[in-house]
């Protein structure tokens, strides 16, 4: 599904990514762990076509990230730190706008359904600017999946969420997984990573330091490996 070969990114004399080789098959839920500044978010942004890599090759379903960018972008659902929502508009308007950009059919109904799913149907006609962080994040999740993406790119999705929102997010990821959706998640939250992911990648200094599969939600394994690789190393 995702093939990354020798990906590097240089910014201001500094190599942020130093040769990432990675291949992810369809339906995997992958957590990317690592310290701040290790290059996790950059990797995600390169995939989301926001940042152009300095060198290297990225193929999504055999399509080149650069040449067939429109086709590729249709497959992605991108959820970064910021909500990507227009403050003055209501959840419905935001979702309909982005749905239209992605060419979603029957966009209004789909948007209404999503707002219901994230439990905000009561606020469907309120401007987003009055919302709390948790509510905004719920709408942001709905925004990211409005076009039923095949690949989800999540950048620290659990930060600053209440328990309800975390459950909604995890349910979304799991239900998307059942539909065969691949998920890449940058996170600091080991607990959530262990809970919903079946593969862990640890990034250190712009390189992949470890790559292993986990099952049965073994949180201890994740934190143990992380300790050894990242914190124990210094």
């Amino acid at each position, binding site marked *: 599904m995702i093939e990354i070969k020798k990906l590097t990114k240089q*910014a*201001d*004399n*500094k190599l942020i990514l130093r040769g990432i080789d990675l291949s992810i098959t369809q339906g995997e839920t992958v957590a990317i762990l690592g310290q701040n500044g290790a290059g996790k978010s950059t990797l995600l942004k390169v995939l989301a076509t926001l940042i152009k890599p300095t060198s290297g090759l990225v193929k999504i379903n055999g399509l080149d990230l650069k040449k067939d960018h429109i086709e590729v972008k249709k497959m992605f659902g991108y959820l970064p730190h910021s909500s990507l929502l227009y403050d003055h508009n209501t959840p419905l308007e935001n979702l309909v706008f982005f749905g239209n950009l992605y060419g979603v059919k029957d966009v209004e109904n789909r948007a209404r359904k999503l707002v219901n799913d994230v439990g905000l149907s009561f606020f469907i006609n309120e401007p987003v600017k009055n919302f709390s962080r948790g509510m905004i994040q719920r709408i942001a999740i709905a925004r990211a999946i409005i076009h039923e993406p095949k690949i989800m790119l999540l950048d620290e999705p659990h930060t600053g969420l209440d328990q309800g929102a975390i459950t909604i997010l995890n349910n979304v990821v799991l239900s998307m997984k059942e539909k065969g959706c691949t998920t890449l998640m940058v996170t600091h939250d080991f607990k959530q990573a262990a809970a919903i992911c079946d593969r862990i990648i640890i990034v250190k200094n712009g390189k992949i330091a470890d790559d292993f599969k986990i099952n049965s939600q073994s949180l201890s394994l994740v934190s143990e490996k992380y300790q050894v690789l990242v914190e124990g190393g210094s």
Partner: protein
Amino acid sequence: MSMNLEREKAPLPIVDLAPVKSSMLTKILYGGMVVSMLAAFYFIFMYAEVEKTMGAVQKIFYMHVPSAWVAFLAFFVTFVFSILFLIKRKRVYDTYAYVSAEIGVVFTAIVLTTGPIWAKSSWNTWWAWEPRLTTTLILFFLFMAYLMVRQMDGVWDKKARLAAVFGIIGFADVPIVFFAIRWWQSKFHPIVFGDGPSQEGGGIAPSMLVALLVTIAAFTFLYAYILHKGVSFENMKIKVGHYKEKLREKLEN
């Protein structure tokens, strides 16, 4: 941590500080500049005849025209390297474009100061909204805008990219500016090269033309030399930045 410090005390790699031998190109450019400049002085002050009505003031003409030529040349160079940068994304192209723009600012400033001095004695007015002068003024502002974009905050490749984009559209703008202003009002400037049928006082004495061409050559050498020096200077800055970054990384790990 203290252990680390002990270990870090290992002497920094000794950099070979032997004077860098200047390349052939530098020597040629330097020699060419010195020789042509001296020749230009000879031609301006000894060879070329003194203008009848204006007198010695007219000599400023030999500064004015070549500076204008260099200013436009500099912008053209910026334009070419901007395109190259957007295609190849190599830092050295951006450095060339940037240094050339910096030189361009200096030379447009020379044009804009010598222009009024000459104008005062020739047209009896400091400034005239006349095509070439006004175009140079707008060129000056475009150069300034280019440098402003280049001096934005952010990482270098972003600044370089945006500056390159501006360099391209800015250069595309200059000819249109010139035609627009020429059309707007054309009264004063004599047409120097070729026949100036409609303009009075057009044309130029052969000795003056020779002096002018020599000066233009000298200024072009000067431009090339400064560009070359400026780029190697910028490159050194970048290199020092790299070393600093490496050192910082070493201290961190």
